[in-house]
């Protein structure tokens, strides 16, 4: 009899349900596998036979045919060892058909029958839940990673025998590693486990707080009030930021602290991000549920594929790994222009669609872009005692950034090296420690501004000021007479383009929101022009 074993093929950060069938019958001894398999999956045959033999199941020389269906989906990875083994076992062992029908199997086999960890368990469990299966049999090493997802019964197994024990016994299982809750004890167990989970959650948040305290904090940044303000404006309205400053002025230090002032993620966002990281094989240790916003800072030698994502079945790139967090591009001018151009679509659509040999995958890429660069090649302009670059060289350096990309970097701010006074200020008692803002304080304000925007754009399909389209700008950014005149004068003086005009209005809207002001005042507007003005003048 042919049994149908459930498994999942990973496809981007989604899983596709796969059924694994094994037909074992008399005939010329052979082991054949079908179903659009990659070399990795084809190797499973050898591992499965050895694992079965070493687990004590000697098989007669028979003809074994394995089919992974649907056959038109490409299958990659090492997760199919276990389902293939179970499919073969099912052909001669009395396994519970009921359990087989409701269980997803995934795991890699060792030749001794041990079951080893696999990447991307979280999207697989997600897919199992969506397919309506009740239980997942996965490697024990992956159990914690998968347990991020509530309301799913997980069985972490370390060897093939444990799997067989589970499938042959009625109800629970003898193995201590197993946490399977059968039909009978379900309600009680779940109640208990939920209480435990709540306790766990409380403990975790305590741990999280401690961890957050260890993280880089804005309180440690001495002085630099101007740039801190610019960063807060950028974060509040999700305006992408370009930092320009000489070497050693603290661009990287500032950027590292930005994830800390982004409002905390909600459960759904945490799960999505964890799933993404699991699919990328990066979820290897605690915490399995990612609660902190990621900070990705790829080196400037990065390739296009690593930045955007790539592969025959595309894997997530840096822009997706920075989803919900910060993508920091240090030395922006050194990145290849090809790599930078890949950012353009995701910056507009907050996701990236990759089409490759075996299909098309869409990854989320809702990242906050911070770029940093030097003001000139030597890095010291306009300090003439150290910089000998002439104006043409400075311009040439700045012009390495293409116009379209520059247009997507909404805010441009300069980072000035900290003066000695600023650095030693707290020690001198000129400004008491208590006067320095911590990241938590800034985060609260940012969260408040995000809330204002969420309420304003309810039903508009956007969340942030920076995402307003032209119609929305006209609707939400009305100007008074004085403001209109100021903008007009600046428009004529600096030769502002229509797109920059709208950008300035969006930034001004954010600044007004930060102050809880319904109206955009002259002050808000001139600050916005300032953040954009440099670009107009120095790249023009």
């Amino acid at each position: 009899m042919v049994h149908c074993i459930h498994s999942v093929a990973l496809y981007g950060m989604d899983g596709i349900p796969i059924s694994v069938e094994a037909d074992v019958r008399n005939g010329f001894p052979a082991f054949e596998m079908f179903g659009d398999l990659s070399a990795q999956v084809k190797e499973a045959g050898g591992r499965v036979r050895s694992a079965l033999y070493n687990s004590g199941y000697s098989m007669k020389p028979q003809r074994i045919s394995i089919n992974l269906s649907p056959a038109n989906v490409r299958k990659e990875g090492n997760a199919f060892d276990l389902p293939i083994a179970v499919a073969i076992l099912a052909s001669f062992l009395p396994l519970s058909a009921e359990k087989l029908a409701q269980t997803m199997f995934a795991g890699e086999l060792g030749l001794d029958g041990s079951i080893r960890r696999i990447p991307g368990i979280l999207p697989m469990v997600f897919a199992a839940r969506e397919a309506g299966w009740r239980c997942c049999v996965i490697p024990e090493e992956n159990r914690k990673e998968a347990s991020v997802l509530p309301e799913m019964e997980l069985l972490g197994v370390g060897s093939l025998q444990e799997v067989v024990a589970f499938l042959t016994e009625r109800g629970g299982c003898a193995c201590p590693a197993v946490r399977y809750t059968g039909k009978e004890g379900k309600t009680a167990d779940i109640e208990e486990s939920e209480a435990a989970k709540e306790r766990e959650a409380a403990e975790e948040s305590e741990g999280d707080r401690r961890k957050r305290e260890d993280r880089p904090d804005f309180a440690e940044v001495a002085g630099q009030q101007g740039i801190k303000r610019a960063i807060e404006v950028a974060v509040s309205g999700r305006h992408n930021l370009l930092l320009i400053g000489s070497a050693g002025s603290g661009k990287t230090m500032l950027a590292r602290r930005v994830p800390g002032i982004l409002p905390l993620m909600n459960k759904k966002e945490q799960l999505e991000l964890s799933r993404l990281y699991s699919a990328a094989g990066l979820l290897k240790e605690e915490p399995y549920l990612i609660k902190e916003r990621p900070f990705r800072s790829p080196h400037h030698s990065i390739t296009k594929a690593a930045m955007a994502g790539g592969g025959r079945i595309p894997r997530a790139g840096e822009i997706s790994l920075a989803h919900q967090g910060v993508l920091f591009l240090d030395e922006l001018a050194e990145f290849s222009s090809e790599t930078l151009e890949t950012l353009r679509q995701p910056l507009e659509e907050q996701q990236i669609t990759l089409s490759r040999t075996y299909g098309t995958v869409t990854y989320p890429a809702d990242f906050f872009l911070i770029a940093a660069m030097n003001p000139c090649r030597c890095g010291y302009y306009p300090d003439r005692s150290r910089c000998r670059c002439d104006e043409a060289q400075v311009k040439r350096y700045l012009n390495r950034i293409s116009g379209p990309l520059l247009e997507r970097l909404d805010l441009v701010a300069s980072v000035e090296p900290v003066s000695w006074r600023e650095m030693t200020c707290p020690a001198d008692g000129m400004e008491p420690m208590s006067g320095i803002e911590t990241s938590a304080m800034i985060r609260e304000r940012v969260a408040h501004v995000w809330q204002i925007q969420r309420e304003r754009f309810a039903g508009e399909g956007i969340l942030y000021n920076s995402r307003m389209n032209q119609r929305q700008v006209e609707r939400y950014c009305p100007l008074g007479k004085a403001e209109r005149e100021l903008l007009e004068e600046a428009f004529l003086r600096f030769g502002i383009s229509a797109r920059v005009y709208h950008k300035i209005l969006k930034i001004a809207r954010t600044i007004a929101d930060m102050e809880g002001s319904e109206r955009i005042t002259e002050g808000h507007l001139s600050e916005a022009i300032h953040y954009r003005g440099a670009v107009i003048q120095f790249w023009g």
Partner: protein
Amino acid sequence: MGIAAEKTKRLYWLWLAESGLRGRRATLLRQYGTIEGVYRAYVLEREAAGEGLWRPGIEELCERLGDYERKGIFFCCCEEENYPACLKEIYSPPGGLYYQGHLPGSADGRTSLEWEKKEKDGTDKEIGRMAVVGARACSERGRGIARRIGRELAQGGAGVVSGLALGIDGAALAGAIEGEGRAYGVLGCGVDICYPKENYHLFGQVLERGGILSEYPPGTPPLPAYFPQRNRIISGLSDGVVVIEARKRSGSLITAEFGLEQGRNIYAVPGRPEDVLSEGCHYLIQNGAKLVTGAADILSDYEFSPGLRLDSGQVPKILLETTEKIVYACLRLEPKHLSQIQQESGLEWQEVFNILLKLELKGCARQVSMDCYVAL
């Protein structure tokens, strides 16, 4: 000397300028006596001996000269009348000059009508010429000073000679044009090449108000080796050399040194002692150059017709509000960073942004680089 003979002579010199023997001019003249002798020795005798390297011949040169003139490029040899007299007296004067526009101190037959009229009125009389040179990578303050001195010199009746480079040189020429005086650019490449190309606009203006000169044939690329040599022409054409912002061991000091050799007056504008851009100027002052802060200090050394208007440091007649005055008072000629302005003024950030924007719109301040402002 007949016109034909003069033209032939010009052609001989053109041959010398284009033949690659330019640098050996003095030796050759000593050896062969006249330029004609040199030409004969090389083109006729050597070629007869089978060394066919010393063409072009007279007819071809004549054609080439015609080509240049169609492009607005003229050639003047050192034996001609309109060749600048002051150049004749220097060591190793160029055998000939290619030029567009006008030659300094000349009244050749090709002056524009407007120029002639002004000359007759006496409103555009050139009393002397000053070389104004300095660093390419200059500070905003230096640029301002160069522009002012150029303008004042022009208003005082002196033409400005410089190198048409970025930075001080270009700013001084731009100042001379502002002051409606004469401006001459001496290039280290062919006069048909606008180098650096950022000065394209200035190039055109200098052509209108003076001339572009070079000893190198049209089409010569700007090679580093040509520039120090070019500096002897800059100082040679001038009565004095003004140095604004020069590093030690810079091209500007080479120009000053040439000027010294040629018996020109040397002037230097001082700067802050710790500034590397002042080092060259301070070195000159220590060695006897005259310290100057404005064109008046220079012009007082020369005779110039009285009654010339010389406005000293224009004060912008713009009304500023109180807070604007506070911010304006914080600004200097050196770029100052925004955060410093905010700290010194003690105003709120947004107010500082607002006021700086307004000052900029009123033309009282300028953002010279990212977040750095200077007063104007």
